[in-house]
């Protein structure tokens, strides 16, 4: 078991799995999570095998991305990083001009499929910052810090403008995590945090009305129980009525009777909580903790600055998803469009997330390369 956790592959496994570039414990945890997620999705979609199948296809694509990326050595990734970043910024600019989508210009229609350029940025921003800081002495000096902030601010502002505040904050956070892991002095961190806190009220002025409404609703959901407060109230009822052991798979009344909004996407955790109870929630959180911990462990094993910072940021961003989503569903945080990673239905996020884990695998697999 210890051998396994260290990432050593047992000899009885087929040759292609014995390649040096896969972290089996992480892969197993991801598999467990995805399998659990598909079960919950089946219930949350009202027993639609079709939905589960389509999610399966996305996971398949994500796993292919994972396998491919795991075989690419980190230094190759690093070389291609600026191009990926530049491409992402260009695409964001393109959505500004020709974006499609309901009320927001988040999507870019590529004929064959539509996708959100902001998804690229979730990986491109930490990659770019890690690449930028890679040759520099850490902790970064003021100049490096300013350039780093510029690297994360440009896409963040472009995404926030779409408007997609949730993704913008996630993208910005992934960059902030790089800075945090780069050993930024605590006094700088606290200073910046204090500045951000002071600037927060200013955020109110640049927010759209629906975003302000969400914040107000978060502060007092019962003020409009049938309108804007509906989501959060029904979600809390679903979670709370799940109790210790839950109502049982496919027996959640809040979800089956469609009281939970967005029950197979952003609020799927409410379905899980209702049907599997506190036990299910804690198991899920432990699984996430294992994945994040494993990711940070891999980051610690890495020998290059780029690999370390990137692996650490990917892991921490992954956790941020969990925190925001679980906080939102339980009424601790305002309603933000952040999916429960690897479990919520749809979006390109699942592919991006698995691609991120592909990079982690690669960093793990190539940990003994020093280039």
């Amino acid at each position, binding site marked *: 078991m210890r051998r396994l956790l260290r990432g050593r592959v047992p000899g009885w496994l087929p040759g292609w799995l014995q390649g040096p570039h896969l972290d089996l414990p992480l892969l197993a945890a991801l598999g467990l999570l995805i399998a659990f997620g598909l079960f919950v999705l089946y219930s949350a979609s009202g027993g639609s095998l079709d939905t589960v199948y389509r999610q399966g296809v996305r996971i398949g694509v994500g796993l292919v991305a994972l396998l491919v990326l795991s075989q690419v050595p980190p*230094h190759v990734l*690093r*070389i291609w*990083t*600026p*191009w990926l970043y530049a491409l992402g910024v260009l695409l964001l600019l393109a959505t500004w001009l020709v974006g499609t989508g309901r009320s927001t210009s988040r999507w870019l229609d590529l004929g064959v499929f539509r996708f959100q350029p902001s998804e690229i940025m979730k990986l491109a921003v930490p990659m770019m910052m890690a*690449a*930028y800081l*890679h*040759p*520099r*002495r*850490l*902790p970064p000096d003021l100049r490096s810090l300013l350039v780093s902030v510029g690297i994360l601010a440009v896409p963040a502002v472009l995404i926030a403008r779409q408007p997609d505040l949730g993704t913008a904050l996630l993208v910005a956070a992934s960059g902030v*995590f790089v800075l*945090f*892991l*780069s*050993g930024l002095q605590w006094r700088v961190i606290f200073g910046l945090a204090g500045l951000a806190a002071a600037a927060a009220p200013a955020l109110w002025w640049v927010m759209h009305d629906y975003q302000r409404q969400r914040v107000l609703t978060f502060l007092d959901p019962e003020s409009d129980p*049938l309108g804007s407060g509906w989501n959060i109230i*029904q979600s*809390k*009822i*679903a*979670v*709370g*009525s*799940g*109790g*210790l052991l839950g109502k049982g798979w496919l027996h959640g*009344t*809040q979800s089956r*009777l*469609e*009281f939970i909004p967005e029950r197979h996407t952003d609020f799927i955790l409410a379905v899980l*909580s209702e049907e599997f*109870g*506190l036990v299910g*929630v*804690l198991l899920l*959180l432990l699984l996430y*903790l294992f994945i*994040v*911990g494993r990711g*940070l462990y891999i*980051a*610690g094993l890495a*020998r290059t*600055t*780029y690999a*370390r910072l990137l692996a*650490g940021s990917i892991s*921490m961003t992954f*956790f941020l998803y969990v*925190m925001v989503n*679980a*906080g939102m569903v*339980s*009424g*601790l945080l305002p309603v933000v469009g952040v999916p429960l990673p690897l479990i919520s239905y749809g979006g390109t996020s699942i592919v991006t997330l698995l691609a991120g884990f592909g990079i982690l695998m690669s960093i793990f697999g190539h940990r003994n390369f020093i280039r």
Partner: protein
Amino acid sequence: MPALMPRTFASRLRGRRPAGQPLKDQALEGRQFRARALTAFLLIVAVLLLLGLRYVYLQVLNYDEYATRSASNRVRIVPVAPNRGLIYDRRGRPVAENRPAYRLELVPEKAGDLEQVIAGLGRIIELPADAYAAFEEERRRFRSFDSVPLKFNLSEEEVARFAVDRHRYAGVEVVPYLARHYPYGDLLTHVLGYVGRLDAEDLARVDAANYRGTTHAGKSGIERYYEDQLHGVSGLEKVETNVQGRTLKVLERDPPIHGDDLVLSLDVQLQQAAWDALGDRAGAVVAIDPSDGSVLVLVSKPAYDPNLFVQGISTANYRSILAAPGRPLFNRALLGGYEPGSTIKPFIGLAGLELGVIGKDHRVFSNGRFFLPGLDKPFRDWRKGGHGWVNIQGALEQSVNTYFYKLALDLGIDRIHDYLAQFGFGAASGLDLLGENAGVLPSRAWKRGQMGQPWYPGETVIAGIGQGFNVVTPLQLANAVATLANGGTRREPRLLYARKHAGDAQAEKVRAPVALQIPVNDPLNWDIVREGMRLVVHGAQGTARAIRPDPPLQIAGKSGTAQVAAQAEDEDMTDATAAHLRHHALFLAYAPFERPGIAVAAVVEHGGGGSRQAAPVARAVIDAWVQQGLAE
């Protein structure tokens, strides 16, 4: 490609150490990084602990509250209206039935902007222009999460059209129900009445809790009189509903108890016979079984189709009924007040005999004119020159006015009043329908109270032939003749014949209560009057000899003519007289003479002479009764 980028930028990105920067200490940075990673991990554990505690708080500490709210989200208690009791005629023909239909219901709380939703529904389903206003009015008696009916009796097309668009209307539902239907339409309207949308007036009368799921209540006729029995007891259903308020399944059911089935004493075939005999003329026919007081026929013409009222009558339809000639909404059988005319004579005659004022052979000479001392205006006989010497039977047979002028004077108005009151004149009969007219049976006291004037002898004279202040209803006449036929037992006539309670195997028979047993001085007196009435039909001089039936059937009858316009001296009614000025024709009859089984009163408005116009109507009813009797 890389050549396009500035050299220094590209080289920096490839990881070369920028000029002027000291070398990186990889080992130190590795330690620094691991310290930061560990800090991050500890923070993450802390946040997860916090999240875990939040879920413990929701799922364990507040479980009871949220479990309750979850249950009240999905479970609703809905009232279930009982099926309304059915109504049959005497021979078991259904006359009021329940037919499956669909109605549109709306839950205000779930529907959103009601005005918009109703306007949208108006495009796929025919709704009246004021549907929104009417709905706002209707929903007041419901709670916002109750289902409120919007439209009844949807056509199949409308149901199909709604099914297509259903997903666009949260909280709107097509619900099956049983709609009242009256297969005989206008034939029985004035008996059965109809049910209509439950309104505030109805709710004030009934137990509102028992009507939570009920949409219709009896508005008139039997439907109204026996509302309590017909309605039944409301039930409850515990149902699971989804977020749109649609019922998904029934969890528990406390079934309703359906209303009592009623059997009426009415016979549809007799009713039809009376209806047909009246033809296009306005009038009324009431027939009562003298042996038990049950009502066999109750026709008022013109009538209207009660089915129009069940679904909520349109304003246009209602106006056309109101404007129709002959006032179809007016129930002549129990509300129509007519001068009894000569139909009063048998009762006056009986009063004379029983009170000892006349005997069987007491004779009076009729010369066509009767003078009251001190008056030079004569009271006339209907035949110019009079009828010569007649006794009581001859006077009834030929309807000799002079005989009754004199008898009335000899009796005096108060004795007439007191005796005739025993037959139910001047008071509601007690029939099981609402709104009966009491009519007028005049007396000195009555006139003083009503008009503040003394009584004049001339008024007694014309009271002897049923003119003047006298007002009777066809129902009163029928009940009086039934009382005469059965020898003095006056009952409160009953339309209800039997009642079957839900779950009972046997229907329980209803008896018409006896209102008064009239004291009889000498049964022979009654025979004398009845023989006189027999002669009306069977005598050589009988005024209604035209309707004489084939033996062995014998009918006793009495014709009457109620004046509509005052008649000038020596003026006779002719066919040329304007229709609305013609007299009303009345006829009383019972049959068979020896063992009375049916007593009939027929009124034909503006028909002219009673024997010519009303007698055939009575005869037609008796014929139908005989046919039914043979069939038994």
